[in-house]
């Protein structure tokens, strides 16, 4: 299938999708969907000539025909099936999504803490109550991000999460996205809208899991608004099937003195693109982006992060680490924009990579666009191998080479995990990470 054919098939899908909407098709959100589809058809899929997509060839994705994901029947078995793949986070409340569809009856909605509201997106859309004009639905954003436009065109499944003013939500909310094995590849366009009001604090764990070998495409958009002086910990664990496609765009807007922390753990997917666009929109806002990616086999993982310092006195810290084995390919782009007004910006960025194989490849590029003159911006990228002296030191104490390599790469990666401020989650992720690295060293 060519790119044109692929676009055409999405247009056909849209026509069929529209017919299922009945009365809703007169809503203002649906008008936005139509605009989004037109925008997507006009821009088309990004090619390697697009600077932002220079190292990621989308042919495997555009060459695959995907049917629209079907609403699964809510059964207790489905929940245990999904849970079997998921991290065990002892104190978390689970919101279950299967094939992109939120399943309220299989989610822990009965015990939501005070100040937290979870709504099924179809219900919100039926009331035509989704705020249009957020970062993810901005016309310029959609023009520059065709996958976001595509998601908007098909937006129906997902949730809105609201945290009321001053609410301190201690229990992490676990958004578990499970994709079922299907006879034919399918596509889902889930959308998560998170609104955290002033002075509130909360943690979200977004996790993607799939049956090993299942072919599907998750085209995800998350839209986070961090209110004044609010603190949001957003953890994403991307553990998709290694045959799956995962393209995610995560938009975050941080108001005055707010803190948005995004922690990313990337393990799955045949082809992965994880984009984060954070706008520091109020003075004193802070943004943290930490991430680790560990592709294996022939996995391709592309990380695209943008930190936009729009106003003065904001800070941002970013640390991404990669461990690349086999014939994997990794991409890291760290764009820092400092607007003309954004004096006294303090932005730090680092990307460190460990190449464990001759055939693995990493492309790393910091991109600084600085229009203010009184700012502090640091960036650095490293690409290295396992240190032979450290390896021999461990071996000389009886630890065989595979385990020694595992210990050293785990030490490299776990640095990211230690920065997640939830102890129960750290343990669960540590365990998963260790097993993942063990697999790569056993070969």
């Amino acid at each position, binding site marked *: 299938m060519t790119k044109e054919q692929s676009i055409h098939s999405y247009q056909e899908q849209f026509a069929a999708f529209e017919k299922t909407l009945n009365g809703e098709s007169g809503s203002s959100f649906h008008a936005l969907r139509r605009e989004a589809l037109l925008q997507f058809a006009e821009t088309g899929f990004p090619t390697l000539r697009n600077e932002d997509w220079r190292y990621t060839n989308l042919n495997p994705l555009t060459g695959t025909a995907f049917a629209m994901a079907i609403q699964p029947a809510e059964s207790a078995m489905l929940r245990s099936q999904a849970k079997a793949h998921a991290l065990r986070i002892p104190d978390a409340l689970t919101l279950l999504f299967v094939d992109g569809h939120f399943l309220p009856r299989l989610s822990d909605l009965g015990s939501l803490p005070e100040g937290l509201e979870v709504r099924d997106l179809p219900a919100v859309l039926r009331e035509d109550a989704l705020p249009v004009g957020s970062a993810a639905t901005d016309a310029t954003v959609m023009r520059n991000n065709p996958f976001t436009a595509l998601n908007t065109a098909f937006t129906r499944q997902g949730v809105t999460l609201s945290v009321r003013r001053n609410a301190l939500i201690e229990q992490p909310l676990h958004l578990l996205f499970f994709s079922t094995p299907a006879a034919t590849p399918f596509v889902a366009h889930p959308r998560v809208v998170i609104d955290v009001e002033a002075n509130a604090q909360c943690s979200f764990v977004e996790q993607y899991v799939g049956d090993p070998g299942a072919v599907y495409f998750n085209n995800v958009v998350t839209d986070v608004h961090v209110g004044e002086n609010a603190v949001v910990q957003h953890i994403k664990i991307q553990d998709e099937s290694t045959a799956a496609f995962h393209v995610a765009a995560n938009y975050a807007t941080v108001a005055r003195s707010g803190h948005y922390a995004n922690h990313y753990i990337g393990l799955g997917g045949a082809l992965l693109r994880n984009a984060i666009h954070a706008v520091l929109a109020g003075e004193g806002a802070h943004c943290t982006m930490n991430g680790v990616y560990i592709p294996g086999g022939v996995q391709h993982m592309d990380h695209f992060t943008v930190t936009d310092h729009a106003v003065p006195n904001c800070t941002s810290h970013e640390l991404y680490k990669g461990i690349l084995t086999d014939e994997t390919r990794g991409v890291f782009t760290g764009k820092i924009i400092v607007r003309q007004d954004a004096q006294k910006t303090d932005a730090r960025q680092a990307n460190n990579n460990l190449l464990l194989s001759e055939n693995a490849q990493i492309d790393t590029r910091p991109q600084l666009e600085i229009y203010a003159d009184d700012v502090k911006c640091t960036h650095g990228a490293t690409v290295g191998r396992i240190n032979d002296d450290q390896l021999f030191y*461990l071996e000389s104490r*009886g630890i065989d080479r595979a385990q020694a390599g595992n210990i050293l790469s785990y030490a490299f990666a776990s640095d990211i995990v230690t920065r997640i401020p939830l102890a129960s989650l750290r343990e669960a992720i540590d365990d998963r990470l260790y097993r993942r690295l063990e697999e790569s060293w056993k070969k």
Partner: protein
Amino acid sequence: MLEIRNLHARVEGKDILQGINLTVRPGEIHAIMGPNGSGKSTLAGVLAGREMYEVTEGEVLYRGKNLLELEPAARACEGVFLAFQYPVEIPGVSNTYFLKAALNAVRKYHGEEEYDSFDFLALVKEKMKLVEMDPSFLNRPVNEGFSGGEKKRNEILQMAVLNPMLSILDETDSGLDIDALRIVANGVNKLHTSDNAAVVVTHYQRLLDYIVPDFVHVLVNGRIVKSGDKDLALHLEDHGYDWVKDIQESVPERV
């Protein structure tokens, strides 16, 4: 326990060891002395299995096994221990984790049950007393931010935990003040029994005041040119290495 026969080794194309012969029996302590560049550390490295050294001739038998055929980890599991001249820092890996992984690897190799965290901690705290180390070192990353003396004590702690048959101490005294030297030597002496053996590689006689060797060998240009008892070390201290170099020159080249 250890029999080195006509051992030749090179590093980066340069011949360093040129025919070493050495026999170590259980209960013995051997000192290997020699000037800089004589091949002392190369010998230690070859025995521990460092990849950078290429053995070109000769053999090494350790408790009846061909040592050179074993992977470095297998050598350690068989009871060979190298105390490093420059212990390696490993950020991100705690000392406890490292020691426990090492001990359990050795136990697993011998088909023994692995230690759980509780039993391990009890064992390691006991061993730490031997080298007068504070338990707080357990939670710190391996050797990271340790002083020279702390690093060497950490080497002896590892030795105490792993309880090797043959310990090779590579310049363990280098850079140590007298207190640290005493603590390290004391640890080595307490670990010494009639069943195990130690090869102490050193440039200076000073260490041998604390660890008294049964034999002293002088290594010059990759060969042992003179062997004797502990008095040989004292003689070297007084007269330097020049006189043994002369002996070496009088030894005919092998053809």
